[in-house]
Structure formats: structure tokens, C-alpha cells
């Protein structure tokens, strides 16, 4: 079902509203228009891991890559039926038992085609991966799912942000029990997309690291806390990177009215990434809802995270630490991690944002096999048709 957005460009009226299509369908304009047609591939889903305490290992799982963003300026004719194929986001993975570890799925390819135009394609992001890191003295690296790239037929193409990486953990003790999960990548609205938060692992036991997803103007926060316990980071934002949440820095989260330092816990409610709050509003593009000078949002949306925000990393419990949000449009999903005490997950927070955000990884290391885990879906791809002017 296509959604129509208000506030189309400022050309001579009448000009039909911008159109968003997130399912495969056909479409024709009511009259000839010049439009910027943007295709977004589906986001890859995150990896799901589930490790027994008695395996004595450190398990890494990474977020999925965001879908590619490809666009062209086209003249669209009412006599032509255009075909939109919407790539699906990667399905989330389900880890039912100990050692039931699964890589994420890739997102699908999105395309826009029709007679007289060059077909635009935008590829989906890759799924996140997982890696056991059991051996003392070994240096491990685990890349996040790669962002979508390699599409065709477009005026421009932006590679999606990768899932967060787990970087060079040196395992110093083979009795470690750790769960390391990274957030998904964000769609590249203005260039190559930003990645989910990286984890720089330090040699500790019984920790859980969950990094935030990427935002359209900054990566998810890095998790590199050197103290024992469970740690998380903010997702990247529409105007800057996320911060290492449990060290007191929220990163630059300008949807908090009046907060220009990024030090206040966001008041915004958790926003389901598949919410229709964006329908028929002006609030689609991050650049249209943000005040770039004062770093605040327009009044109509000040109580929620803006489009382009990465999801917050979370650990051990469904209860929010702070009031971090899930991913919004284009943003990468936050990761979930639990260590020793299990914890019950709310998998909605791992979901990648609509229009190609990568899904976050989930992982646990605990006694009980009953702590099943879900990773985050990749955000579904789609096509946005921005009306530029009517062609007379």
C-alpha cells in the first residue's frame, strides 16, 4: 500500500505529493512529472547467538548491513506503468537453544523500471555473522554484515552502512563467558552509510556488550568499556554519532528539545520501526524535521526520535536503561546481549528501520537453555518518488 507524504517540493502547483512504496506494485503518475526516484534495498538481519555458560567462550555476533540507496532524476509519464519491486528486509533469526548460532539473512534487491527509462536497482545489505572466540592468546576480528552495493542504472548510488564490527579482542583467559553483539548499519542518505557501533573487546569475564545501530549522520556508539559487567551504547543520530551510553554520554541526540550537549536521556517514547507515524506528514526526511542551527526538532515530532536514528543497544532485560528508542526510518537496529543471568529480550528493539536499516544482533551466554534469542529483522526496502516539478 503506497503512502503519500505531504510537503512535496516547492514547485508550481498542482504537484502531487511524494510517494513511498514499500511493497511490490505498479504505479503511474496522474500527469507528466520530473521526479527524483530513490530506491532502497532491504537491510540485512542480525545474527542470533546462544551460548552455554559451560562452553566457556566469548561469542561475537554482528548486525546486518543496510540496503543500498540508488537514485535518478526521471521524467515520468502517465501513459506508462512503472514497476516497483520492493526488496524485503532479511528475516530475523531465532536461536532456540545453546550453541544454536545463526547468521543473519541478506536483504532483497529493490528496483524501479518502466518503458523509456533505465531500470534502477539497489541491492540489499548482507546479514550479520557470528564467531566463537574460545582460544587464549588468539586475536579475533569479526566484521559486521556488509552494506548493500553494486546496484545499477542510477544517477548516484550510496553503499549502505555495515553492521558494527567486533575488533581485535585478545582472549586472555579460556574460561571467559562473554556475549558481544553489535547494531545494524544505517542507510546512506548523503554518502556511504554509517555503521553500527563497534565493540573493542577487553579481556574480562562475564560481560555483555550491546552496541547501537548506525544513524544517517553518525555511527552507533562504540562499546569499549574496560570495567566488568554489562554495557551498551546509543544508536547513531540524524546529526551525529551515538555515544557509549553507560559512561554517561548519550551522544548527539538533538531530538531532546533544548539539549545541545547530548547529555540528557531522551524523553521520547519507544517508536516501533514499522509504525505508520510517518504517513501523510512532513516528517519523512531527517533534514526536513531538524533545525540545523538550534539542533532541535520541529514541535510536531519533538517527543520521538527523528527519522534516521539508530536503535539503542540493550542488555539483559526488557526494561530500558534510560529510555532509548528503537530504530526509526533508515536507522540500524540496536543489539541485544545478555550474560550469565539470561534476561528476557524484547526483540522489537533490534529491528532495523524501514527503508533499509540493518537489523541488530542478539546474543546470550547463560546457564539455562530456555533463554531463546531473536535477532533483528532488516528494514524492508522500498521506493520513494520525490516530485520535483510538473512537466507541461
Amino acid at each position, binding site marked *: 500500500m503506497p503512502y503519500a507524504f505531504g510537503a512535496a517540493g516547492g514547485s508550481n502547483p498542482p504537484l502531487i505529493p511524494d510517494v513511498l512504496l514499500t511493497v511490490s506494485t505498479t504505479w503511474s503518475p496522474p500527469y507528466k512529472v520530473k521526479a527524483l526516484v530513490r530506491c532502497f534495498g532491504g537491510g540485512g538481519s542480525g545474527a542470533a547467538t546462544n551460548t552455554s555458560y559451560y562452553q566457556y567462550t566469548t561469542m561475537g555476533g554482528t548486525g546486518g548491513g543496510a540496503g543500498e540507496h540508488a537514485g535518478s532524476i526521471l521524467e515520468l509519464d502517465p501513459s506508462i506503468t512503472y514497476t516497483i519491486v520492493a526488496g524485503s528486509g532479511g528475516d530475523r533469526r531465532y536461536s532456540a537453544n545453546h550453541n544454536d548460532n545463526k547468521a543473519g539473512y*541478506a536483504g532483497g534487491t529493490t528496483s524501479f523500471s518502466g518503458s523509456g527509462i533505465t531500470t534502477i536497482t539497489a541491492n540489499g545489505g548482507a546479514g550479520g555473522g557470528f564467531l566463537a572466540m574460545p582460544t587464549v592468546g588468539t586475536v579475533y576480528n569479526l566484521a559486521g554484515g556488509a552494506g548493500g552495493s553494486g546496484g545499477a542504472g542510477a544517477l548516484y548510488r550510496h553503499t549502505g552502512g555495515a553492521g558494527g564490527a567486533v575488533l581485535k579482542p585478545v582472549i586472555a583467559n579460556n574460561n571467559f563467558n562473554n556475549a558481544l553483539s553489535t547494531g545494524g548499519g544505517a542507510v546512506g542518505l548523503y554518502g556511504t552509510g554509517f555503521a553500527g557501533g563497534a565493540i573493542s573487546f577487553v579481556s574480562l569475564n562475564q560481560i555483555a556488550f550491546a552496541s547501537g545501530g548506525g544513524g544517517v549522520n553518525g555511527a552507533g556508539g562504540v562499546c569499549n568499556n574496560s570495567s566488568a559487567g554489562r554495557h551498551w551504547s546509543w544508536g547513531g543520530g540524524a546529526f551525529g554519532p551515538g555515544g557509549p551510553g553507560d559512561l554517561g554520554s548519550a551522544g548527539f541526540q538533538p531530538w531532546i528539545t533544548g539539549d545541545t550537549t547530548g547529555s540528557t536521556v531522551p524523553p521520547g517514547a519507544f517508536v516501533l520501526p514499522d509504525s505508520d507515524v510517518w504517513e501523510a506528514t512532513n516528517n519523512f526526511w531527517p533534514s526536513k524535521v531538524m533545525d540545523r542551527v538550534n539542533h532541535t526538532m520541529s514541535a510536531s515530532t519533538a517527543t520521538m526520535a527523528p527519522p534516521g536514528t539508530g536503535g539503542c543497544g540493550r542488555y539483559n532485560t526488557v526494561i530500558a536503561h534510560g529510555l532509548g528508542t528503537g530504530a526509526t526510518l533508515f536507522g540500524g537496529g540496536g543489539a541485544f546481549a545478555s550474560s550469565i543471568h539470561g534476561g528476557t529480550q524484547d526483540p522489537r528493539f533490534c529491528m532495523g528501520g524501514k527503508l533499509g536499516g540493518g537489523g541488530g544482533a542478539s546474543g546470550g551466554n547463560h546457564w539455562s537453555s530456555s533463554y531463546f534469542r531473536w535477532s533483528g529483522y532488516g528494514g*524492508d526496502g522500498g521506493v520513494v518518488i520525490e516530485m520535483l516539478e510538473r512537466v507541461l
Partner: protein
Amino acid sequence: MSRIDVTKDGVVNTISSSIEFARTVFPVADGYSHAEAVSDEPVAAVLTLEEGSLLEERKWRDLELKDSDWIVQIPDHPQRAAYITYRAALRAWPATSDFPATRPVLGE
């Protein structure tokens, strides 16, 4: 809207589409095949949060009993009496109104 796997030459593209639309745009005559994408998530095995909580608390109880079993076997263990009381409370816990919200606590 369904998730449809469109396959050609071994390459799968998962799209958000009806199966009919997928067949129209990607014809079998051109070498495509189509199928509803299958999730690996066994719906029947997914517990509600409440069910999951009950199961988790029982697992925790069982583990506590298992891990403290050796203590009550040692006559001169300094906390033997406390553990005997604690283990009795653990065994009785699921039948009480405290289950699953309030876990038994080891006394002095």
C-alpha cells in the same frame, strides 16, 4: 504482504510482494521460480513473556538446588543449616504465591 523468494540461476532475491505479482514481473518462462519465504522461527516454540518467566524461574530454582547440593553433604560446613532451610524454601517455592516474582533468599 508476503515475503516471496524469487530465484533464478541459484540466486535468491526476497521481495515484499504477493505471489501473483512476483509471477507476473518475474515470469517462469524467463527462468524464475517463486516461493513463500520460510522463517526458521518455530512459532509454536515461542513462549509468551509470562510463560518464559515461569520457565526461567524454575530453571533458576533447579540450578540453585544443584549448585548447593554439595554443601549439605558436608557436616561441618559453616552455612549448612542456612542452606538446608534455603533448599527447603526453594523446593516449596513454585507452590507458593511468591512464585515467580519473589525468589527465596539464603539466610545467615
